[in-house]
């Protein structure tokens, strides 16, 4: 009896590449239902209203694309082109812009600790949690019509397939073919909507393996770390372009985050 059970278990372990439904689907559903993301949303609500910087004002007048202070649906509409900055911006890049313009903070100070840890989440992380929640249920709809939005998509696509560094990796080295895994982790093919959709619908997220809340800027940064490349600057055109490329690929998918990741 035991041998039969073990055989079945082994088959399950080996099957994921071929399975229609991910063997982790139940895990991901239950873990998402039981994720501690609300703690970060609470902290984000406070950070949004906190007066700080040389101008001693909050971020409450920050325009995330839907008008000053409008949070509903703002995350689902990003990245997009902002005329005031003449740039395509994702959520974190836009928040940084507001910190610098509205609050008068220096870039160096505002980006000193953008990636937190299990003991202490960063301001950007908690703000991302709070703001993303208010797009829950809305379709992902980044800007795609402005020439700079088109350029960001094109650059992101080129970067995605660009092989470089000591290990000759591009994003597509791991996220380029269907049905592949790294260890037991299934690899979403992020230039295809059927993979980009479910993935982008759940970022930012509480990351189980580090017990920390993480953002898309972190995700891109950490991919380049593991690709053995130098470090991309936070909120740079390169990181925004990659986020834009994958978000545009995911467009139309209802956003259901913030959620949980392995």
């Amino acid at each position, binding site marked *: 009896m035991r041998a039969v059970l073990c055989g079945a278990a082994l088959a399950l372990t080996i099957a994921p590449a071929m399975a229609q439904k991910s063997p*982790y689907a139940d*895990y991901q559903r239950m*873990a998402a239902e*039981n994720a501690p993301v609300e703690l970060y949303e609470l902290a984000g609500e406070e950070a949004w209203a906190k007066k700080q910087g040389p101008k001693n004002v909050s971020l409450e007048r920050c325009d995330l694309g839907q008008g000053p202070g409008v949070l509903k649906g703002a995350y689902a509409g990003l990245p997009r082109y902002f005329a005031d900055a003449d740039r395509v911006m994702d959520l974190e890049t836009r928040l940084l812009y507001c910190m610098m313009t509205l609050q008068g903070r220096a870039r160096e100070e505002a980006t000193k600790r953008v990636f937190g840890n299990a003991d202490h989440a960063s301001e950007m992380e908690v703000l991302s949690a709070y703001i993303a929640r208010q797009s829950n249920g809305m379709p992902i709809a980044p800007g795609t019509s402005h020439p700079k939005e088109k350029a960001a998509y094109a650059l992101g696509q080129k970067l995605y397939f660009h092989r470089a560094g000591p290990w000759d990796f591009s994003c597509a080295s791991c996220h380029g073919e269907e049905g592949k895994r790294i260890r037991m982790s299934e690899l979403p093919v992020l230039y295809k909507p059927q993979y980009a959709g479910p993935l982008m619908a759940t970022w930012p997220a509480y990351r*189980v*393996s580090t017990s920390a809340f993480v953002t898309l800027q972190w995700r891109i940064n950490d991919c380049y770390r*593991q690709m053995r490349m130098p470090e991309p600057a936070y909120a740079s055109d390169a990181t925004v372009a990659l986020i834009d490329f994958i978000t545009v690929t995911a467009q139309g998918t209802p956003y259901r985050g913030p959620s949980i990741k392995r």
Partner: protein
Amino acid sequence: MNTVRRVLLQGAGVLAAGLLAPIAALAATWNKEAFGAKSAPDALKSIGATHAAPSGDVVIEAPEIAENGAVVPIEVTSNVPGTRSIAVVVEKNPFPLAAKFDFLEGALPYVKVNLKMGETSDVRVVAEAADGKRYTASKNIKVTIGGCGG
């Protein structure tokens, strides 16, 4: 308040040193023997569940396979009439007893919690009926390694 705190801190210190000393009476109960047990049989013994009867009335909902052992969601419902308590034992964890829930008048015998699992293991749930009889069910949960390991 300060006194309470100090007594509790001392209790924790003693606990950490591995000595057996009763935690101050003011503190809530915590079954040191059961939680300190290093094998599943010892843990079950110390909660009086060695001879628990297998029962379909103890329902465990959990994933068959977990992407990461740091968070494994587990939902337990006991349909055993008059359930007084539910204990959750992760058999292969260094300290197998993970949690014990005592249901007083007003609570339903149901709980959902995230547990840590060091490796693939059976997770055993023991429900205690009003008459003190123990009923049990278990479920195997696989824990896998993912990611680049960087």
